[in-house]
Each structure stands twice: as C-alpha cells, then as structure tokens.
C-alpha cells in the first residue's frame, strides 16, 4: 500500500493587500484569498494534476505546500510530519525531499554559474561529499535527464529551452526530491520539446517513485500524465477525481466548460458529452471581492438557467466538496 507523501487539510493562504502609510496599524486589512480552504492528499508514485485559469491559486498552493509562502491557516503534512509551522532550520533539512520546478526556465539557474557548478552545489547541499563522488553523481544525473556532457561548461544563457528545463530537473533530483511541484513545466517550451519533457518526467516517476503535483493549463498533458486531477476556481477546489473521469464525465459546470474549450478538431471521439451549455459573455471577475457563496455563480450557466437560486449565493450554504462517485468529489449544488 503506497504511503501518502503529502496531505493538505483546509489550507488557506491570504495575501494582505497593504495600502497607505499606516497599514501596519489597520485592524482589518484588505486581503486576497488566493487559496481558500483546499484539501487533498498525494500518494507515492502518483501524479495530481492541478488545473484552472490564471489567478485561481494553483501556483500559490504549490508554493505554500513547499513553505515558500507562509500558510495563513490549515495543515500541511509531509511524509507523516506536520510541517505547517516547522521552524526554518528543521525545515531546511526536509527541503531536499520536496522540490519545485519553476515556470520560468531561468529560475533555478544563476546566470553566472555554469551547469557543473549549479549541479555540484545542489549535490553538496546537505552532505559533504568527495570530489570523485560528486563527479560520479553528476554523470549519473546527466544520464538520467538525457543531457549532453558537453553542456557542463555552458552558462544558462547558452542553453536552449529544453536543456534549461533538464538542468532544472537534474538540480531538483540531486537533492533527493520525493515530491516535485511542477509549475507549468512545459509552457515556455516549443511543442516538440514539450513532448520530450513530458516523457522524461514520466520516466523519472517510474524509475524513482516520485510524486508530482502537476500544475498546468494544458489540459491534454494533464490528462495524460496525471492519475488524479483537481480543478480550481478562485482559490477553491471545485472538483477532484481520477483524470479520465474528470475529462470525460465532468460534473461541475466549470470543469465541463474548461474541457470543452479544448480547441480540438482532429479527434472524432468527443461525442461523449453532447450536452452543449450556452455560456453567456464573459465578464471580468473581481478577485479582490469574491462573491458570497459559490464563487462560480456569476459565470455559471446552470445558475442562470435555474433562475438564480439563492442557495448558490448564500454564504451559509456555500457548496462544499462532497463525494458523488468513486473518489470523485464536487462542490456544486446542481452537479451535471
């Protein structure tokens, strides 16, 4: 029975919006609820895909889990240990096991260091290792991420996009990562290179029993690589379940809209979901003042078609995640 590598319980991250000179003293500061109560768990050797539009909080969840942001409330349990309020020095020891691949390709790479330095620094973070051993490990890493040895003496700006991504992955592996939060790992890459990186990530998962929190807006890749998928909207998880279930049998209106927006022409197999939902014109949603109750209501066609029932917008009856199928959770009063 594979163990749970990370569990998140009612995690909240609110960003305080400071305004003015005396914002230190304001009692009730204006805040942005970037993540507003997310709960899920991830097992070993498993990939959880996290999807949603920009601004929905998926990147913030990833960063908060790794304690790059301080959680406002809730619990993060990593490998059995509660790390929500763990002090920094103890946290640093654990850091090796939970790592992040950043959206920006240049993120992890100090432009003044060459690849060899970048990797050897990562290898020797937690232990003192002999030079020969460092060499051996670097060679091993290069083989794993399929990077040419000649690239060791290059600087980051001399590398192509795909190569930068590989160095980033190698760096993360060299500290002994067990959980990897991958934030849009393929977005900045060309289509033909994206396939390489996706294949690489799958290989690595098989070889090293890694767990991924795969954050992306590319729904097809998420569907391909994930075991489970969680759909986020304005800081809340609105649906979560096995990836093919979510893709083909979405129960939350937002999920359905997301997946049907895949501009697909080639395949004829999309005949499953014949229900066409007419969505009105998109407006701009004001994140800073989310609507009370269900956050999706202003854009929800079901809400419209049912004559705007109060149950959807009453804060007391805000839809919570509940199970409606095998390992399938939805937060909606009128699931499809």
């Amino acid at each position, binding site marked *: 029975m594979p163990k749970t590598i990370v569990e998140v319980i009612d995690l909240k991250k609110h960003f305080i919006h400071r305004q003015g000179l005396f914002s230190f003293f304001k009692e009730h500061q204006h805040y942005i609820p970037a993540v507003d109560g997310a709960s899920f768990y991830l097992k070993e050797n498993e990939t959880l895909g996290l999807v949603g539009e920009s601004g929905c909080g998926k990147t913030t969840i990833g960063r908060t889990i*790794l304690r*790059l942001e301080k959680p406002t409330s809730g619990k993060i349990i990593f490998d059995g240990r509660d790390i929500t309020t763990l002090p920094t020095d103890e946290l*640093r*020891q654990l*850091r*090796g096991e939970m*790592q*992040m691949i*950043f959206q*920006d390709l*240049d*993120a*992890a*790479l*100090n*432009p*003044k*260091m060459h690849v060899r330095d970048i990797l050897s*620094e*990562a290898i020797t*973070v*937690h232990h003192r290792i002999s030079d020969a051993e460092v060499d051996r490990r670097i060679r091993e890493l290069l083989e794993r991420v399929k990077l040419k040895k*000649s690239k060791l003496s*290059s*600087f980051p*700006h*001399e590398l192509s996009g795909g190569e930068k991504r590989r160095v980033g992955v190698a*760096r*993360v592996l060299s*500290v002994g990562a067990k959980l990897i939060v991958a934030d849009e790992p393929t977005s900045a890459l060309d289509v033909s290179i994206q396939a390489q990186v996706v294949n690489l990530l799958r290989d690595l998962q098989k070889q090293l029993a890694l767990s991924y929190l795969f954050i992306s807006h590319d729904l097809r890749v998420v569907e391909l690589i994930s075991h489970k998928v969680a759909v986020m909207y304005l800081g809340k998880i609105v649906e979560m379940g096995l990836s093919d279930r979510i893709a083909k049998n979405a129960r939350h209106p937002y999920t359905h809209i997301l997946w049907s927006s895949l501009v697909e022409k080639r395949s004829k197999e999309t005949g499953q979901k014949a229900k066409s939902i007419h969505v009105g014109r998109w407006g701009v949603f004001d994140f800073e003042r989310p609507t009370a109750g269900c956050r999706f209501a202003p854009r929800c066609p079901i809400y419209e078609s049912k004559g705007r029932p109060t149950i959807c917008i009453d804060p007391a009856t805000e839809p919570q995640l509940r199970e409606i199928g095998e390992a399938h959770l939805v937060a909606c009063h009128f699931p499809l």
Partner: protein
Amino acid sequence: MKKYSQISGEISEFSELPFWKKADVVDLVYVGYGLLIVALVVVSYILGSFHFLPRDPQDIDLQLMMAPPGTAGRLLGTDFMGRDMLSRLIVGIQAYFLPGLLAIVVALCFGTGLGVLAGYRGEKFETVITYFTNLVDSFPRLVLILLVIAAFKPDIYYIMLVIGLTNVPVVASLIKGKIQFLKQKNFIEADIALGLPTRTIILKHILWHHCRSLLIIQATLGMAEAILMETSLSYLGFGVQEPTPSWGNMVQSGANYFMQGKFWPSTAPALAILFTILGFHLLGDGLNHILEGKRST
C-alpha cells in the same frame, strides 16, 4: 553603408567574448590609466612607509629654493624651502591612503549589511532602513565634518569615519536595488527551495556573483572622494599640519609664491591631486561600463 561579415569556419558554441574584445576602446583606456594610478599610489605608499625615498622630505636646502624639475638631481624640482618635491609627494600619500581605506571599509561593510537586510528581508526592514538612509543622506557632509572637528580633534581618521558613514546610504541603496532586481529573477527563491543555507545564498550567490563589480566600483569612487576630502581639508588648514607634507597643505603654502611668479610649488601637488583623482574616477567609470553596462544578458 554598414558592413557585416561572418567569419569562415566553425562558429563557437559559446557566446562569451573575452572582455577585451567586448569593451569599448575608451573604457579600456580609462581602466588602463586608472590601474596605473592605483599601482603608483600603492607603490608610493609602501615606499613612503619604509622611507625608501630619493631624499629626506624634510631636508631643507636654501640654495635650491623653488628649483624647476631636473635641477641637481631633484626629479620634480623643489618647493619653497628647497625640499625635494618628489619625496614630499610620495610621503603625502600617507596622509590619505589608510584613512581612505577606512572610509571605504566602513562604507562597504555597513552599506552592504544594511542593503542586504533591506533587500533580502524586505517589508518592515526595508521601510525602516530606507527612511534611515534617506535621513543620513540628507545631512550636508562638510558641516558634519566640521562639527566632528570642532567636537573632537581634527584627526583625519575621525573625518574618514564620517565620510564612510555618509557613504553608507549610497552603497546600501545600490545593494538593495540589486537584490530586489535579482529577486524578480526567481533563482533566489529556487535556492531557498533547494535548501541552501541563507549564508550561502547571500554571500555566494548574491554578493560574490552579482555585487562584486558594484562594490569594487564603489571602492574606487570612495577613494577618489577620500583624496579630495583630505586634500581639501589640509588646504583649508584643518588636516595635516606643516611640516608634514600633505598634498593639500603643499598647495596651500605654495600659493603664497604665485605673486612672485613661482608657480611650481603649488602646481606640482595640484597636478598630483588632479591626476590621481581622475585616475580613480576613470577606473570606476570604465569598470562600470565594462562590468555592469555593456553586458550581454
């Protein structure tokens, strides 16, 4: 018509040109001259400390007053009391070299410390430190120095301390700005995520890799300023007193002889001041262009 031509043969995989190919001729000249001046100053300082001088700087020879350069073996002539100009100029460096270093060290250490705190920790630290540095910045430097002289004694080291402290805001805001710029690039965050200790991140990644050129440039400018300050004060009579030579007081005492048409006793040290300060400034400027400005991103 602009002409572009490609070299035949292999095009290198790497794009780093050695800096002498990348840099402007002008910048190289600046840096070359500046380094020459630095070398002269350092050598002179060493010679002066061990008294390896051509002649005794205090040796008065009334037969040879205000002699032009080359007379009787005095390479740079003599001053109004027949003392060897060259030896006096060399010894004059003692007046500002170590004090100048003090000013530089103070400015860089405290400036870097505050800058790192403000830039790295951010938020409250940044607000407080920015207010504080703005405050220090707004003090008129000369007034402060005169206050120090009046309150304590006209010790050049005290004065250099003040100069160092008043330069702290400049260094601090440069370092802070650099760190804030780097933070946007995400790799500081990636380092934290990796588990690197804060000490390593700050010292190695930020300061050594990205700030060292900045700090070197600030050091050159600091020395230029120290020289100017010391010579000005000595000229005004507040610094080094006669008969100990300082370039400033040499200009001062030589000024009396202008009416007699004897320009050399004043001009020689004045030129020394000019060329030395110019050297440090050009060094700083040239290095700035080469290391910071024309860099290929």
